[in-house]
């Protein structure tokens, strides 16, 4: 049985079939981006085991084609088993082994990236300082204890938990939070409108306004605007139901037991042990045209615990790698007075570099060997 499995996994026929499936998958996943956008296509086609098809109104999910993880995983198994057996049966071929290890590393690296990397954004106006970056679409409910004048204590509840619409208890909070309603995407209105219902909040901003749930956004350049109603419960009774929404610019303020709390639904934040200050953003153009020549952000890195304080220039093709994160010039404000840096945390970012070197060397060895063989044969004849 094990033998037959090994034979199955060593077969070149399997490789060819998997490569053909991979070709179809990549092509399909590329074309699908026109309709559903890059992000969703990535999740449905490449970061999945199967591609599902849902007949209209049935609620079923029928797997119809292997996804990226399945094809990639099988390819990985194929090349690992092949090389293990290969070693025993045939003469060692260093070039081929290097190529296969490299390809395997690429596949594994992509998986690690999918699992471990996080991306966030850092928006800075000229002169502004921040010690956190923000998710691009994920929200969190921040409960901030503002009682002390010098420090805020923040407790953040991620969107995934709010979505479950249950009661959330936190040891640090004197109350529990019951999520009554949560819409991942929504719109608000002051007055009654067609299709809107009245917001069932009892206190704070937005009580008595109207809202409506919206389908989630598929477009790349637009984001969901979630809203929800949360009730704060203490052993002595309810502190009231509050509207929390991405639309609200001001927090909901709640006083309890002599302490002041603020509730705010905001983009999920990633705090850093240092702060970044935008010294200057530049948008250079070619003379006499509007063609951009370069975008660059001069930022100052200040780290209190080490006393580090220096300026760096982040520009196209030249990111800042710092403290396990990488900061890229991603976008800018229309008035050229602010910058948007993309912040990527990817512990496995070096794997493709190793993979590339391995495969490159392997291919070179193979290629030179063939060339040498060919030349000798050609000369002999």
């Amino acid at each position, binding site marked *: 049985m094990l033998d037959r499995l090994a034979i199955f996994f060593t*077969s*070149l*026929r399997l*490789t*060819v079939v998997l*490569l*053909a499936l*991979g*070709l179809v998958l*990549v*092509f399909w*996943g*590329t*074309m699908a*981006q*026109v309709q559903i956008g*890059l992000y969703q*296509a*990535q999740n449905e*086609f490449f970061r999945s085991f199967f591609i599902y098809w849902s007949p209209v109104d049935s609620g079923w999910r029928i797997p119809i084609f292997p996804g990226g993880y399945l094809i990639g995983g099988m390819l990985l198994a194929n090349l690992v088993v092949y090389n293990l057996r290969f070693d025993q049966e045939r003469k060692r071929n260093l070039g081929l082994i290097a190529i296969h290890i490299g390809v395997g590393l*690429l596949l594994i*690296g*992509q998986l690690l*990236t999918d699992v471990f*990397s996080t*991306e966030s954004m850092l928006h800075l106006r000229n002169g502004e300082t921040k010690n956190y970056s923000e998710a691009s679409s994920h929200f969190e409910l921040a409960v901030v204890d503002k009682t002390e004048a010098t420090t805020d204590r923040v407790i953040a509840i991620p969107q995934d938990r709010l979505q479950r619409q249950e009661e959330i208890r936190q040891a640090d909070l004197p109350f529990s939070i019951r999520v009554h309603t949560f819409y991942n995407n929504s719109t608000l209105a002051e007055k009654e409108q067609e299709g809107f219902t009245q917001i069932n909040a009892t206190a704070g901003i937005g009580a008595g306004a109207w809202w409506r749930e919206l389908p989630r956004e598929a477009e790349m350049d637009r984001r969901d605007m979630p809203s929800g109603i949360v009730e704060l419960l203490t052993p002595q009774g309810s502190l009231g139901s509050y509207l929390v929404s991405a639309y609200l610019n001001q927090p909901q303020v709640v006083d309890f037991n002599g302490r002041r709390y603020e509730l705010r639904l905001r983009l999920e934040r990633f705090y850093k042990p240092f702060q970044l200050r935008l010294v200057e953003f530049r948008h250079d*153009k*070619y*003379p*006499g*045209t509007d*063609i*951009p*020549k*370069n*975008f660059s952000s001069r930022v100052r890195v200040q780290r209190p615990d080490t006393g580090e304080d220096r300026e760096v220039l982040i520009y*196209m*093709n*030249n*990111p800042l790698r710092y403290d396990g994160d*990488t900061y*890229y010039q*991603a976008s800018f404000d229309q008035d050229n007075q602010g910058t948007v840096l*993309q912040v*990527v945390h*990817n512990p496995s*970012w070096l794997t*493709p*570099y190793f*993979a*590339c070197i391995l*495969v*490159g060397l392997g*291919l070179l060895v*193979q*290629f030179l060997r*063939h060339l040498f063989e*060919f030349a000798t044969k*050609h000369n002999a*004849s």
Partner: protein
Amino acid sequence: MKSFLKILPWLFLGLFATEIVVVLLPKPESKFHTAEFGRLPVLLNGRIQPFDSVARNSLLQIRSTGDVPLEEVPAWKFWQHPQKLKSTAWLLEVFFRSDVADTRPIFLIHHPDLISELKLGEKGIDKSGLRYYTFVELVPVLNEISEQGRKASSVEDAQRTTYQKQVLKLANAISLYQQLKNSIQPEGATNFVELITDYQAALPAGLAAARATQAGQKTDAVALRKLAILTQQFEIVAKYALPLTVPPIDPVNKDAWVNVGASLLHSVRDGAIQPAVSCFARIATAYRQDDVAGFNSAVAGYKNWLTPNFAREQAKGRAEFYFNQIKIFLHATIIYIFAFVLAGAALLTFAPAPQLSESLRRSAYYLIGLAFVVHTFGLIFRMVLEGRPPVTNLYSSAIFIGWGACGLGWVLERIYKIGLGSTVAGLAGFVTLLIAHNLALGGDTMEMLRAVLDTNFWLATHVVTVTLGYASTFVAGTLAMAYIILGIFTPLLSIKVGTDHDITLGNALTKMVYAIVCFATLFSFIGTVLGGIWADQSWGRFWGWDPKENGALLIVIWNSLILHARWGRLVGERGLMNLALFGNIVTAFSWFGVNMLGIGLHSYGFMDSAFKWLMLFNASQVLFILLGFLPLHRWKSFKNFTPKQSVRSN
């Protein structure tokens, strides 16, 4: 006869080499020193270029040709060269003799609905089914064109109908033309020198009057009006002029070029006219008044004035002018066609007339070598002009793919002396240069690179390797095409070739395709991974499933599929050929198709008119694959095939 066949290849080589030498030699100057004017540097599209490039790229956008023919010669009289107005000569007319320029048939309209809607059916001149109109003929319908153009431009690019695209193109051409007419002097000015002298004379009184008005005092209304009328004319130039022609006075700030109008308006401050503006005024007036000596001395005067501070710009102008003049890629194309025909003839005469065949094959081989040298010369010249690695946009990728394919074909021919390598090189060179020619109709092909692309390191590594990957995949596909054509329609594949006549032509082709696929895998893989590393450096992720990245990945997957299928003996000769043919479709999708999706970070090369051609190409490749599936006894090369005798070989 035998000795004639021996010298024939050298005759061909000598003939074409002479032609190239003649092309490269400097041309005599005309009565008006138009070439001298054409070499003068200006700033447009963010780069220094000669007037001639402005003229040529504008004409390509308006008329789809680089010159204006002055007489019509029927297409079948190909030996008659019609008199032509060269690009710079045309530009001089547009600048300074707009009355004449307005009567040149330069506006190309070929959409029948557009012609009939604008009621232009009776007008214009017809050439090979294309209709050209003069500006005078279009004057009555200008408003309608701009109105229709405005409507079309409000429709999203991908949704536009052919009619809308045409009308938009025409509207753009007209506005480009009108900009050019006001680029140096106000359109129709008969004596620009006098206009400027008047302006200088009117300045003191006019300015004094203006100050008085501001202070609420009594003013000299006549002086004020006189100045206002003059300034209005210059304002038009300042607003519409296309190239920036006046170099900066402060040589430190090298980018601060302005146009003549802006410079004149600037003179309000101190009344001083910039030397460059005075020079252009003299050039304009002399040309307008048909004063040959005056024109030539004014151009020479401006040149001398430029030399101390703008020697580099002048050198750039001269070099690019020369490059425009020699049209090196056109001449390479001609040699490629000849070499292709000769190599094809060599293949077909292989059996009946081996000596003739060898002579033709050798001719083709030499010509491919010559074409490759010419192509390389053009490629390097462009690189030096741009200061960039060879591939920076779709246009240059076509040039480079052709170059790579030609080089590979030439090497194949060196190894297997049967004419196949030359055939492939000739075909690939011709087709890619034709594609490049059509891509050039979009405008300046040496445009500046947008921020993220402004890196010579990645352009030189990732872009070059991945493009070589494209080129070699195409070469493998073209060889497969040759295999199927030769196999089905001729008995050639079973003919013994090689130094010892030890293998058949079919076997040799199989070896070639296999070797090229190996080569293609190497380059496309390395190129794709380098692209991933570039993406990691600039966007923070190695791989993002962006369409262009996926396109490159498809090529890698496909090439490695071919290799694995071959190693696993899952396919024989024909299977290998069919797989290689499909590689053409995959590569064409990656090269052009993904740009047509109009999405993703790489969508800087969007284009839609090529879609039809891409589909035709894909259909032709599918047809070849279907032919490849014909049962072997239908193949002329394998007529005597019996199932026992396998054609599989390694």
